[in-house]
């Protein structure tokens, strides 16, 4: 038993390093599964995130805590790696390489699709939240933001001080959106004229979920990926800008 005790001690002491190893193994397993059993149709990242949520459920079930898997001492580092600081750091990094010239060329319609995409998804999510009995502005806004992406939801929820279960709901809504975009895009592409750079940019702007768009376009026509991903890159930024500010004020005004 001394072997196990020492190992546990090392894993706990090096929490965030343990989290790197854990997430790496989880992502590797997910991409392997994606390639082996779904021919890449269901993107590895979607599987990994789903597994993460499942493990968070398991963690909550066994520990009774509110931090999912991170309530096990050896996985405490997951809470740091998946916390707001690293998350925001990585999100900002994804904006690098978005070319200002290409954005200018896409001009008006690309920008409009991003703003419209955020607002439309937000309205759908907020209406569903109200239909399910939520009546405080912070919760409604957070769930609306989650229907935008699984990033905008927690960023908004954290900023507005929403409860952890509402934030988890917003992540779940965003995840369902992401998975559905990945799986559904090849099927609906002919119906919505998704076969040229402009419609790809509009599609990316409306959908917004970066992994969903990247996965969905790759499965439809890989040449469309950069156009869709470029506008999608802005969606989370615009969402993080609008949801906790303008959209929150509008919701608060309507609610009160």
């Amino acid at each position: 038993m001394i072997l196990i005790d020492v190992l546990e001690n090392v894993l706990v002491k090096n929490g965030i390093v343990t989290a790197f190893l854990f997430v790496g193994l989880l992502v590797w397993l997910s991409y392997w599964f994606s390639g082996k059993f779904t021919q890449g149709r269901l993107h590895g990242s979607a599987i990994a995130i789903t597994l993460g949520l499942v493990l968070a459920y398991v963690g909550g079930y066994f520990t009774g805590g509110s931090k999912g898997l991170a309530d096990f001492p050896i996985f405490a580092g997951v809470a740091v790696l998946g916390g707001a600081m690293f998350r925001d750091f990585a999100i900002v990094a994804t904006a690098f390489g978005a070319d200002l010239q290409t954005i200018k060329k896409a001009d008006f319609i690309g920008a409009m699709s991003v703003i419209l995409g955020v607002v439309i998804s937000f309205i759908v999510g907020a209406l569903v939240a109200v239909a399910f009995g939520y009546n405080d502005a912070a919760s409604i806004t957070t769930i609306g933001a989650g229907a935008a992406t699984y990033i905008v939801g927690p960023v908004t929820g954290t900023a507005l001080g929403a409860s952890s279960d509402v934030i988890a709901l917003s992540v779940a809504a965003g995840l369902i959106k992401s998975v559905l975009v990945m799986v559904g895009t090849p099927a609906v592409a002919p119906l919505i004229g998704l076969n040229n750079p402009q419609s790809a940019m509009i599609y990316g702007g409306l959908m917004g979920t970066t992994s969903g768009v990247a996965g969905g376009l790759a499965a439809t026509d890989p040449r469309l990926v950069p156009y869709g991903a470029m506008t999608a890159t802005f969606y989370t930024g615009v969402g993080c800008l609008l949801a906790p500010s303008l959209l929150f004020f509008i919701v608060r005004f309507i609610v009160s």
Partner: protein
Amino acid sequence: MVVYGVALLSFCLLLGNYLGELLGVVIGVKANVGGVGIAMLLLIILSNLSAKKFRLKPLTESGIGFWSAMYIPIVVAMAAKQNVIAAVSSGWLAVIAGVGAVLVSFAMVPILSRMGGESEPFPNEDES
């Protein structure tokens, strides 16, 4: 040096968060308003400026690229620390909100495409 890229990224996030906090104070919410969004815009503007004036060295860029590539793993970790057990008790909300948002957004693509004018489709790929 790789650290220059990481430092540039840190600068953008810190300045963005600072402006976001100030904006929150100004409009009277005890919240960070759009700090992450401002930081993203800062990085895009900075990286496009420097492409003309002083090109970022590939090593510097790799300091940013690394964290960009860590985006999905970090989101996976974020998922694994959520309070899922509490969310599951009202599970249909998430499903309906997610599916509804996707369906409405799909429907908007052809409408906006028409407003943007016609665009040439890519030629068909050789079937293989």
